[in-house]
Structures are given as C-alpha cells and as structure tokens.
C-alpha cells in the first residue's frame, strides 16, 4: 500500500522505482537507464531534460509503455505495468498515453479526421462515435475546418496540432510529448506550447521530453537526466 500512496495520501499517476534498462550491442552493454525513481501526480506539468545519450528518450519510452524495463518497477494508475504482456500494454498505451512526436508521425494517406480517429479504432468504438469524438478533438486544437485535409496539405504547426488532437482523443491520463517543437519554427513552437499550457490548465497531465530550456520553462517541474540517472528534480508542484 505504501508504494501506491505517498505521504499526502494521494494516489500518484506514475510511480517508478529503481528502474533500469540495459541494451546489448554484441559484446558491449549500454546502461541506458541505471536506477531511476520518479513519482508523477495527476495534472502535473513535467519536463524531462538532458543531453542526447543521457537516457531521457529511454525513460520516455518506458513511461509511454513502448519499452519494458530490465529492472525495477513501474506503477501506472496503481497497476504494476513493468511486467505486462503485449496486448495489455497495447490497451494501456491506447487508453492512458497520448503521444506527440517531434516528427508528428501522421499517416500521409489519411486526412486529419481519419488520423485523429485511428486510436479509437483500437479502442473498439463504433464509426459514428469515433467520428464525433475525432471532430471534437480537432475542434479542441482549433483545426475543425481542416478535418478533410491530408497532412501534406498542412503546415508543420497544423500537423502537430492534428497529432495533439490524436493524442487527446482517447482522453489519456498522460500527454507524452517528445520534442514537440523540434521541427517547428519558433513562432509556431510558441503556439504549440501555449496549447499545452491551456490543456494543462484544463486538467491534463503533461510530460515533455526536451533539451530546450525555453520549452522546459513552460513546465512546472524539471527533471534532469544524466548518464541514466536523475541528476536533479525541481520537485512536484501539485495544482
């Protein structure tokens, strides 16, 4: 029980203890994560920072359930997820995590609406329900009028907004953004960051992974990773 509730008695969204991940490349082994402890509360706005090769991407993959740890434990919403199999992980990724990538990762063949609809297919929603939710999500990011456009017909900022709508459409516990402004000019990047700020104010938990201080400045809490461990943590700010 003590692992699932903290001192304040509140149940944390994420609780990571002693997490480690080692990659093997032939003879050599690389400790991408040595021993990470991290607790994230609901509605936190967190930035994970660190130079490339520090292990921040590995940590993000762990949090996003794309990778599984070799050591340690990871509780998400009270469920021990570090030991789960593929289909349960896929279900949790679908329900709990909304990904936003540096390179947007939209399907070029599909229009904005169908891109946003996609996670709902795997959630098992009917077509009508899917389309109305996707419409709503596009509205949320201010792209209701671009629903029928394909990614190639949109600007970078618009594409990233579609990606954010896709991440939000399942109403996930965590919005997980990996360098969301990395491929955008600074004005568009600022737009995207203010969208994140609004979402956080509306109650969304957000985890940003970035090496840009200006992006991290939007977050309430900064966690610095170095050589596979947490070098500094400004601490939780719970709203």
């Amino acid at each position, binding site marked *: 029980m003590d692992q699932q509730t903290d001192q304040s008695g509140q149940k944390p969204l994420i609780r990571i203890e002693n997490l480690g991940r080692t990659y093997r490349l032939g003879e050599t082994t690389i400790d991408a994560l040595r021993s990470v402890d991290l607790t994230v509360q609901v509605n936190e706005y967190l930035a994970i920072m660190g130079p490339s090769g520090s292990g921040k991407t590995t940590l993000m*993959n762990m949090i*996003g359930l*794309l*990778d599984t740890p070799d050591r340690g434990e990871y509780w998400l919403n009270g469920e021990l997820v570090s030991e789960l199999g*593929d*289909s349960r992980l*896929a*279900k949790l*990724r*679908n*329900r709990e995590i909304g*990904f936003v*990538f540096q390179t947007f*990762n*939209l*399907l070029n*063949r*599909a229009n904005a609406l169908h891109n946003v609809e*996609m*996670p709902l*297919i*795997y*959630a*098992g*929603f*009917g*077509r009508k329900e899917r389309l109305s939710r996707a419409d709503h999500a596009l509205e949320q990011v201010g792209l209701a009028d671009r629903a029928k456009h394909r990614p190639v017909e949109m600007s970078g900022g618009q594409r990233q907004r579609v990606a954010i709508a*896709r991440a939000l459409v*399942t109403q996930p516990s965590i919005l997980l953004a990996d360098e969301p402004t990395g491929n955008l000019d600074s004005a568009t990047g600022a737009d995207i960051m203010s969208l994140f700020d609004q979402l956080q104010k509306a109650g969304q938990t957000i985890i940003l992974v970035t090496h840009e201080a200006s992006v991290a400045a939007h977050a309430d809490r900064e966690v610095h990773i170095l050589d596979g461990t947490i070098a500094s943590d400004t601490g939780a700010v719970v709203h």
Partner: protein
Amino acid sequence: MMFVEMLRVAAQSIRANFFRAFLTMLGIIIGVAAVITMVALGTGAQRAINEQLDSLGGNVLSVRSGQGFHRGVAVQTDKLTADDVAALKRDVSSVTAIVPELSVRRQVKLGNQNRSLNIVGTTPEFADVNGFEMLYGRMITQGDVGAKRRVALLGGEVPVEFEIDPTQLIGQRLLIQGTSFEIIGIFEKKGSQMFDNQDKNVWIPISTAQYRVAGTDNLGKIGVQIAPGIDIGQAIIDVERVLRREHKIIPGARNDFNLSDRKQFLQMQQEATKIFSYLLAGIAGISLIVGGIGIMNIMLVTVTERTREIGIRKAMGATRANIMVQFLIEAMSLCIAGGIIGIILGGVASTLLANLAGWQTPVSVTAVTVAFVFSAGVGLFFGIWPASKAASLDPIAALRYE
C-alpha cells in the same frame, strides 16, 4: 467493427499502389483461370469420351486384316475371309454376333453428281453391333444378303455430300461404278470416333459387295460382338486362337491380322485424358503457388515501406494481433480479388474453348469453390510470414524508421 476498418485500410493500401497490386495479382489470376479452364476442359473431354462409350453397343472386338511382309516391304494382305467368319461363329462360344465388313472405294453417282466413296458390304447385324440408328428407311435384311440384292444404305452425311434432301432419297437409285442400286435407308449421323468417320460411307449387302462390286471375298474387317459379362481378355485369346488356326500360322510367327477392342481403347483414352487433365491442373496449381510467392514478396515490400505506420499504430494502441490481422487481410484481399478475376476469366476461356472444340465444358461449382478457397488459402499461407514480421516489429525502432 475493427475488421471493417482493417478491410478499409487494406483497400486503401491496394488502391494507393494499384498497378503494383495488379501485377502481383496476375500470378493468382492466371493460376486460378488456368485451374478453372483445365478442369472444365478435362471434364468436357471426359464427357465426350463417355458419350462415345455409351454409343458402342456391348463389347465389340475388331479384327482387321493385318500387314504382311514381302521381301521386307510392308504390304496389305487381305487375309480375312468368309471362312474366318464361319469359324469364329462356330468355335468362339462367347460371340453373340459377327459382322463382316468388306470395304472398297468406288465412284458413286447420285443425281448428276459423282463422288468417290467407301462402299461397305456387311450383314444385318451391323447397325446393332456398331450402335448405328436408322434415320429413314430400313436396314439391310438377311433376304437382301441371300439374294445379293442391289440395295444401299447411306451414311448420315452422304445426302449433304450430294446436296440432296434426305427425305426424298428413299426408293431413289444411285449408281456404284455404273451399277444401279436402290436406296433403302439412311443412318443417323454418328460423328467421328477415334479418327474414323463413317458417316460418308455407303453400305450394301455383303454378298452384293463380293459378287457385284468388289469381286473379291477378302474382308477388311470383322466385328465380333462378345456376350455381356464375358471377360474381354478371354474373348480376345479365343478369337486369336481360332484365327491363327484358320490361317495356319505356326507357333511363334506373327499374326497376319490385328485385334482391337474399341471399348478398351476408349477406356485407355479416358484414363489418359484424366491423367492429362490432372497434370494440367497440377501445373496450374503450381502457377498459383508461384503467384502466392509473388504476393509474399510484395507484402514484405509493403511491410518495409509501412514500418513507420506500423510503429505509429502500435504507439496508438494496436496489438501485435491487430497488426498481424491487418496485413493478413491485405494479403488475402489481393489473393481473393485475383481469384475472383481468375474465376471470371477461366469461365470465359472455357466457354470459348467449348464452342471451339464442340465440347460441353461445364465450369463446375467444385472447381470454382476449390479455386476460390485455394487462392484465399494461398493468401493466408504466404501472408503469414510478412504479417508476423510486421506484428513483431519493435515500435520504437519502427517509429524511428526513415
């Protein structure tokens, strides 16, 4: 619900690379069309042979005068005679009828036209034993043979040959080598059998042929009808024994006659056709498998091309099974679409060939079902590896794939 979505994605992907998909499908299309056509043709050929088998009355052995050798040169020896007929009748117990045939080619004049036709002298049993039916008139009778009457029966195509209405011919006269004959009947057309068309022959009593037309009693052929239920092999041995004795052939010497069993020959032909059509269907099946390998190849390309998409889908919550099923559906859609086009093409091809060959070549429901199921199976079988390759992709690596 998810299945419908996966079908939609598969259709989208096939449409996006339509030409490539079509080329890939060609293997399946050709394979299925070939299977359908070959099976239909095989069935048609079988039917044609079966009809011929049915048209033969009972078991009939044919004895033909064979080739003899004179100073190393093959010469026709006309060694079958009325004595042979009598001996066979007397000494082969399983015989129910014996039909001698004496054939000569003669000039025939009917109306104001001349044709060179086969004149066959025979006996009344000829029609029964050989399965000929009367179209008009009557058969040659024993009385005709006894009195050496000058009466003639025409094959079904003779009236066509002389461009005369067959209904007008009974009772009319025709000239064979200048001798006048009365036309007493016309046979129904029989069609060609084993490279032999008898519909242009003219039949006359055997005695008339011997004394008034051919001037010889050497027979070209003796038809021997064997009683039903008698082992044809034993009958052949008996006939051979009697004829060798009659012809005084010393042991070890070759027969101076040929014995053949039409029914057995047709049955052999039937077997050969069956084997041939299996062989063709087998080759067609191999082309289906080659088509399947083509599908596998293109699916592997598709999986590689869509690595990033697979990564995205996995990140959005697609399970391994979801990805697997999606790519299997795509592979099977290609194969089934190819299969359907192939079935249509095969149906058209066998109808065309049927009209050309004059056969009935029914496109069987079985062949269509088998071809369809087989092509779906090919899609499933050759789709599994690419699909499982897609399903087992590491989402992190897939998302980073350029």
